[in-house]
């Protein structure tokens, strides 16, 4: 049951997004509180601080996981929406294939950027 597996990962990616997007939102919007607690990572949008964070292993891994989860979750949902339009079977397959290809390409490109920035200046 291929669809059951896809749906399982769809739900799991939602949980992953919840956690990692929570971290992202915390860093972006709760910087003053995090700073007061001694776990701040600098100014959320200052270029130097953004680069400093991106060169840390934790953030690089976070970005890749968040990217993969968001791509899978979003594109699976997008495919489901299109499949509800009573399309011919061949078009459904083409839509599924296009979503998979787009997701894979965007994941490779996004991961490359995250890893490249992580390695910058090493």
């Amino acid at each position, binding site marked *: *049951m291929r*669809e*059951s*597996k896809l*749906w*399982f990962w769809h*739900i799991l990616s939602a949980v992953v997004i919840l956690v990692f997007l929570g971290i992202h939102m915390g860093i972006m919007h709760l910087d003053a509180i995090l700073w007061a607690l001694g776990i701040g990572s600098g100014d959320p949008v200052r270029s130097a601080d953004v680069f400093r964070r991106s060169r840390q292993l934790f953030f690089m891994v976070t970005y890749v996981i968040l990217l993969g989860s968001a791509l899978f979750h979003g594109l699976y949902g997008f495919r*489901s929406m299109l*499949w*509800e*339009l*009573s399309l011919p079977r061949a078009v*459904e397959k083409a839509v599924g294939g296009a979503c998979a290809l787009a997701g894979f390409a965007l994941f490779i490109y996004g991961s490359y950027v995250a890893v490249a920035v992580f390695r910058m200046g090493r």
Partner: protein
Amino acid sequence: MSGPQAKETGSVKTVVFEVLRYDPAKDRAPRLEEYPVPVTKAMTVLDGLLWIKEHKDPTLSWRSSCRMGMCGSCGMFINGLPRLACNNQIVHLHSSRITIKPLPNFDIIRDLVPDLERMFGLHRTVKPYLIRRDRAEQNHPTGEYYQSQQELADYIQFAYCIKCGLCLSACPTVATSRSFTGPQGLTQGWRYALDTRDEGAAEREAEIFSEHGVYRCHFAGACSHVCPKGVDPALAIQLAKKDAFFGSLSLRKKRRATSVAPTVQHGADVKGIPKAPEPTVPQKG
């Protein structure tokens, strides 16, 4: 209606029935026709339609049979909600105007008669019957299957479906997707998946968990809201999804199909039954 005429019919008020009329052989498009109906206490929408047929227009068509919410024939779109015409009293609708149309999401055969072939086709896809690996036993049963009260209680709610089609007509996904199995079929698939007498899970799950199965449900809950028998198809679909989720983690509860109970020919064959006491009244002959 008022005065002597109302007294004569015993009616409490007049309600205007706005009924969709459509004959594909004659009409270009469906139209609404109005019929004032003298309404009495406890009169159902179906009674109102029967009154129209008897007194106003004998050509009005619809489907009905039992008049008691058992057969599921008289499903209609009454005042913006799919309902059974026999199960809804006119006074309970609290309206002086009742609009009646055939069930949405189905083609119209004529007037208020929907073409339910789509529903029965989808129903067939989930194999709504007990499947046993032992085909010989299935085709020529030698006895009954064991099933406890608790095992029966697990699925009995879903077995109350009368195939009226109200859930399908209320479902927003069915409205857009021709391929979606729909709440009725999925619920019946799940009903048999829960049945301990069944061994056809693999065959049935291929449809229930397909790309047009349970995962396309948006959980609007409209199916459960309109179901006249309290079957709660939305619950069945969520339970199926939950089962698939734990199945993916290999945490699904393993079900073991029940076996055929040995046939008891005579009470005397059963061990442990105490002997009947001697009769206290002398027997004749």
